[in-house]
């Protein structure tokens, strides 16, 4: 499954500044694994050692929140990696 991933700006240090990239996978977990192969270390910023989404990160498939890594991703979906921001 090929999808587009939109990347929150605090995570773009891993993608050489790219705001979006293509990725493949049938679930959020597979999409993040694909990203991590190309951008090593990126997954750990979002997913902890127990495979839980970190509490200051939310992952959305299109506009719906993904509760865990098993959330399905279909061809053409847009996965959004959202971070809590702190600037004011």
């Amino acid at each position: 499954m090929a999808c587009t991933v939109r990347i929150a700006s605090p995570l773009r240090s891993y993608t050489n500044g790219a705001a979006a990239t293509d990725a493949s996978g049938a679930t959020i977990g597979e999409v993040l694994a694909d990203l991590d192969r190309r951008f090593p270390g990126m997954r750990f910023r979002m997913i902890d050692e127990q495979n839980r989404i970190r509490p200051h990160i939310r992952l959305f498939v299109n506009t719906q929140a993904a509760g865990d890594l098993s959330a399905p991703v279909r061809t053409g979906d847009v996965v959004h990696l959202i971070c809590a921001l702190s600037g004011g």
Partner: protein
Amino acid sequence: MFLTPSELERYQRHLSLAEVGQAGQEKLKRARVVVIGAGGLGSPSALYLAASGVGTLGIVDCDRVDVTNLQRQILFATADVGRAKAEVARERLSALNPEIRVIAHDVELRATNIRDVLKDYDIVLDGTDRMATRYLVNDACVMLGKSLVSAAIHRFEGQALTYVPDRGPCYRCLFPEPPAAGTVPSCADAGVLGVLPGVLGGIQATEAIKLIVGTGDSLIGRLMTYDALAMRFQEFQFARRMDCAVCGDRPTITALRDPPEVCSPEALSRVRRLTPAQLQSMLAGSDAAMLALIDVREPREFAVDHLAGARNIPVGEMSRRVAEIPRGVTPVFICRSGSRSLTACAVALNSGFAAPAHLEGGLLAWAKQAQRDNTRFEVADLA
């Protein structure tokens, strides 16, 4: 609360709107709104709320105006540099609209004083630049039954949401816990497009005014994001979590507390703040072996240039890697601007280092010093 003849004239363009009208304007006059942080977000939101006739407007900020604020914090003028932000804001907003009451709160919000600050207001606008304060404000709003319009910015990107008691999810339902210390950079570290908070602060003021007047749809249960580079607004649905620690069915946070990554002022006073010249002289002296230079930037930044002998432990990994720092030496934490390094000091203090040090002003200050010494140091930009 009736409008005076001068108010009827001033707010004429609101009175022409059926959705606001005289009844709505009178609600605005009765409204009590507090803006947390007179910064990039608080500047435009407070200006619009004052101009719109919000009758009681509180401004909370304990900082002084710095020249680097002026690129985006439009409440302030160059002549205000060095003055208390809350007080300057009070003057500016009162001058804009003498019909309203503006209250300056020149205090740092903590668990111990936030109830007292918020108790006389109905709506809270959060524009703080500190993650810990963001969670404290959310928890206080849930516990005190206040509506909250929250926004945050980073580089070219912003996000906003609205919480109304008993009508939808709170900030913790979206992001249950703050990130590990220092993993989310501040504006000082990451940079921010000056006009960006104008958009987000404008959204916050709009949300507050609609809540007061009782019109339109609010950002309740919707996260709105804005990407200035792509010029794209998006929104994402999120729901109240039954297991939310503060607004859930069985809350575990029942008393206000400062989130753990906030290092106490007493502890931070033990941090040794080194100027570039001081660090340079220590590195050249006989005690150099007693220092451990720890560069807490991201590996990509470290790769561009770093101080000789420095070891790279990104601040986000500091909690789990602090044991790699040898005991018996003084760790000197280094980052780009001196913000992440201070966070690393807090982690080190919590891990038992008695007196960690950090490079005040970071490598940006070091590079300036290097320039004066006719040497060169390249500081990587953030992504």
